[in-house]
């Protein structure tokens, strides 16, 4: 008899609880990470035939989160990839903007302008304006290359800072995840009382995937176990800190515990930042350096063999000093091949012309260059042995001085590039894009540009030869302008690849997000329908109760 009331009551109570759940869902329709809740009803056992048939009615088993953790894990994989590609894309488009190509202000135009000016100078070597313009063009080219290189270096520093920030974000989240794990365990694992905590857990997991590509190793469990590329960060309530790299060439490390040491994230923002800082940007920098070094070397080799507008040399000092590599305090006794010169000179014959200014008679002397064994002092001694010139070494620099009434030059065919290696009559100084500059001797002295190979005022043959360097193979069979073009094209290809990867991964992530939303998201229409359903259930149960009540009244009346 009592079961009449209890059935009705259980229905009313269950409907109310279901309506509460609907309210909770509607309230959280826009909450990120919220998975919709569903009330689970079970019918109580009841047998009409048995006198003690149980209480009957409906029982609320609990509220569940509608969530597919395996789908979520898959989504996190893709979104980690997407976050990584997006970061790469962001930096690559910044690099692209630095290049200013294709355009009038790019380095390609600076290279072309530089060589064109050599060609203009070859036409009018006596023209001071053309000479001054050439120095300007050369300085502009040096500046453009070093600006680009330092911008890339600065970008690497910026990436280090962004990495440090991202690592802090990771640590904040892993610490919170460990706490959430503990609270979930305290609340009895995956039971209904920890549903909000599970929402929180899933949100942190999504953030960790985007940050560092961390994955949940235990998608089916109540607590999350998070690892980066196999290295555990959070296991139950244990959490290990991630440390930012100590320098731009290093990767991140896990602080302590088992599996400590360097880790190599495969996804997320941090993986992209590490890749940019450790591989891509250094590679770009080295390509710019390689190009700058080839430019410096090839121009210097030709320039060192020319004669400046001032005439033949009477006093010439090498621009770069040999270094004391063997550490005995004397830079002049290291073999040329290992004396810290910008490049190792070739073995061969160096030819020196010594001219008697009064008769105009020129004698060509030969010095054999063996960079493996010869030291700077040996070279100086060989110069010194030549009639009418003297040579000395001071501070690692070679100085050649002719006797009064004599002068010297290096216009004879050279079988070695030792002049450029020592920086005798060089046009550029430096050995890569960072320190490349106009040779100090030439700054403010356009007349010292060696446009010709004779003292004739109209001889622009050397300038013409340097102008043609743009057509000569510089590195790996490519000319200097080709090196730059292929660099720009490679940056373009990398950037375009990142763009299309972002697009592809983006639509993949969208698809999975839709699937997840389809399962776990709140549909207001659905909730509205349920609201009506539970409302009707409530009224029906209430009506049932009042019917039972009237029946009981009737019985009492007739008694």
């Amino acid at each position, binding site marked *: 008899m009592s079961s009449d009331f209890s059935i009705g009551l259980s229905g009313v109570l269950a409907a109310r609880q279901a309506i509460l759940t609907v309210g909770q869902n509607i309230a959280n329709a826009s909450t990120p990470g919220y998975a919709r809740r569903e009330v689970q009803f079970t019918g109580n056992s009841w047998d009409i035939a048995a006198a003690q048939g149980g209480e009957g009615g409906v029982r609320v088993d609990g509220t569940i989160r509608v969530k597919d953790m395996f789908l979520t894990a898959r989504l996190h994989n893709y979104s980690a990839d997407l976050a990584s590609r997006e970061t790469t894309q962001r930096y690559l488009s910044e690099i692209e903007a630095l290049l200013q190509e294709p355009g009038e202000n790019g380095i390609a135009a600076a290279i072309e302008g530089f060589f064109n000016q050599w060609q203009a100078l070859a036409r009018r070597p006596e023209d001071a304006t053309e000479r001054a313009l050439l120095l300007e063009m050369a300085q502009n080219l040096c500046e453009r290359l070093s600006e680009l290189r330092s911008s890339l270096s600065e970008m690497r520093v910026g990436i280090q800072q962004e990495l440090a920030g991202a690592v802090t974000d990771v640590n904040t989240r892993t610490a919170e995840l460990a706490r959430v794990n503990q609270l979930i365990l305290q609340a009895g694992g995956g039971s209904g009382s920890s549903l909000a905590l599970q929402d929180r857990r899933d949100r942190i997991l999504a953030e960790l995937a985007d940050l560092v590509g961390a994955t949940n190793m235990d998608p089916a469990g109540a607590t999350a176990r998070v690892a980066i590329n196999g290295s555990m960060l959070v296991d139950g309530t244990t959490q290990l800190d991630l440390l930012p790299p100590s320098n731009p060439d290093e990767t991140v490390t896990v602080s302590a515990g088992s599996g400590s040491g360097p880790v190599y994230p495969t996804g997320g923002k941090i993986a992209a930042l590490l890749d940019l800082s450790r591989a891509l940007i250094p590679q770009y920098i080295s390509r710019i350096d390689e190009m700058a070094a080839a430019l410096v070397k090839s121009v210097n080799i030709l320039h060192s063999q020319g004669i400046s507008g001032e005439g033949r040399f009477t006093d010439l000092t090498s621009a770069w000093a040999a270094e004391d590599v063997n550490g005995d305090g004397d830079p002049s006794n290291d073999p040329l091949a290992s004396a810290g010169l910008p490049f190792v000179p070739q073995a061969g014959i160096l030819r020196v012309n010594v001219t008697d200014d009064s008769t105009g008679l020129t004698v060509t002397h030969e010095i054999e260059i063996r960079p493996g064994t010869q030291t700077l002092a040996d070279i100086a001694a060989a110069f010194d042995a030549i009639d009418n010139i003297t040579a000395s070494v001071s501070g690692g620099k070679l100085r050649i001085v002719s006797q009064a009434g004599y002068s010297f030059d290096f216009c004879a065919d050279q079988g070695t590039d030792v002049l450029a290696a020592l920086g005798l009559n060089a046009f550029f100084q430096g050995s890569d894009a960072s320190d490349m500059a106009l040779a100090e001797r030439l700054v403010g002295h356009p007349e010292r540009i060696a446009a010709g190979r004779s003292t004739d005022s109209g001889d622009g043959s050397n300038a013409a030869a340097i102008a*043609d360097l*743009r057509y000569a193979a510089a590195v790996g069979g490519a000319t200097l302008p080709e090196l730059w073009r292929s660099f720009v094209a490679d940056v373009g290809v990398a950037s*375009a690849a990142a763009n299309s990867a972002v697009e592809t991964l983006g639509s993949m992530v*969208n698809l999975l997000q839709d699937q997840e939303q*389809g*399962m776990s998201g709140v549909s*207001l229409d*659905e909730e509205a329908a349920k609201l009506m359903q539970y409302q009707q259930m409530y009224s029906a149960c209430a009506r049932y109760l009042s019917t039972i009540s009237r029946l009981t009244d009737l019985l009492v009346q007739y008694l």
Partner: protein
Amino acid sequence: MRVTEEMRTGNLLRNITSHSERLSRLYEKLATQQEVTRPSDNPVATSSIMRLDAHLKALGETTKAIDAAQGFLDAASDTLERASDALARARTLAVQAANGTLSASDRSAIAAEVNQILESLVQCANEMHEDRYLFSGTKTDTPPIAVTRDSDGLIQGFSYQGSDGALAFPLGRSRQIEVSVNGQAAFLDSDVLEAVKSFRDHLLNDEGLTEEETAAALRDDLSRLTVAQQDLLHTAGEVGSRVTHLDMIGEQTDRAITRATDALSDFRDADAAQIAFELQREETILQALLNAAGRIMNVSLMDYLE
């Protein structure tokens, strides 16, 4: 599949964003009139644009070199023509003198004119173009012909001070065009100056030759002048052929510039009609999307609950 509010708004936003993005990209193209504004737009085209750009700049430099060479050669050609005219006058006078009917005073009058011709020929040889000596080779700052004069100021001897090396303008890619004419060959080896000087000296007859010897010497001078004039004409002709060659190179360069400009435009310049069409289409789509958004967002079962 369940469709939730999040999905609806999310998808809508995504679509609107992607179309707005495309629209702004089209606006950029329209504003710059360029198909490629950054390397990632089209890496291959970027590379081609840069190559063609460099090619065009180098061709521009070649054009400048051709113009400069043209100026130099034109000046040389003019000067040689003037020298040739002067020489022709000297030869006319030599024909008169060789007739042998001239008095001593007639001869000295002619001698004075011939001396003028000699001076003007030396002037021609030392002619400059844009502050550079035309016939000195690479020694552009040194007058090619130095003269020695006697006490009366009459020219007695000539020497070449210029360079044997020819002045050449680079045209790029190791090609060059010689613009100078060697003064030694044009004025000394050709006997131009010496023949005129010998003619003048025989007219003045400082050596005290007999009338017959003088007549013979003058006849000899006439034939020397004839040969010298031919030589000078030959030199002028050689300069002329260089100018023709230069014209040809100039035409080739102009054609190359046209071709490269066309190719560059193909790679770089945006097709205005195509952009206008695409712009129209994207705008229509975006409008339709926004329209649909307004409708979809308004439909909800909640509206029908009592």
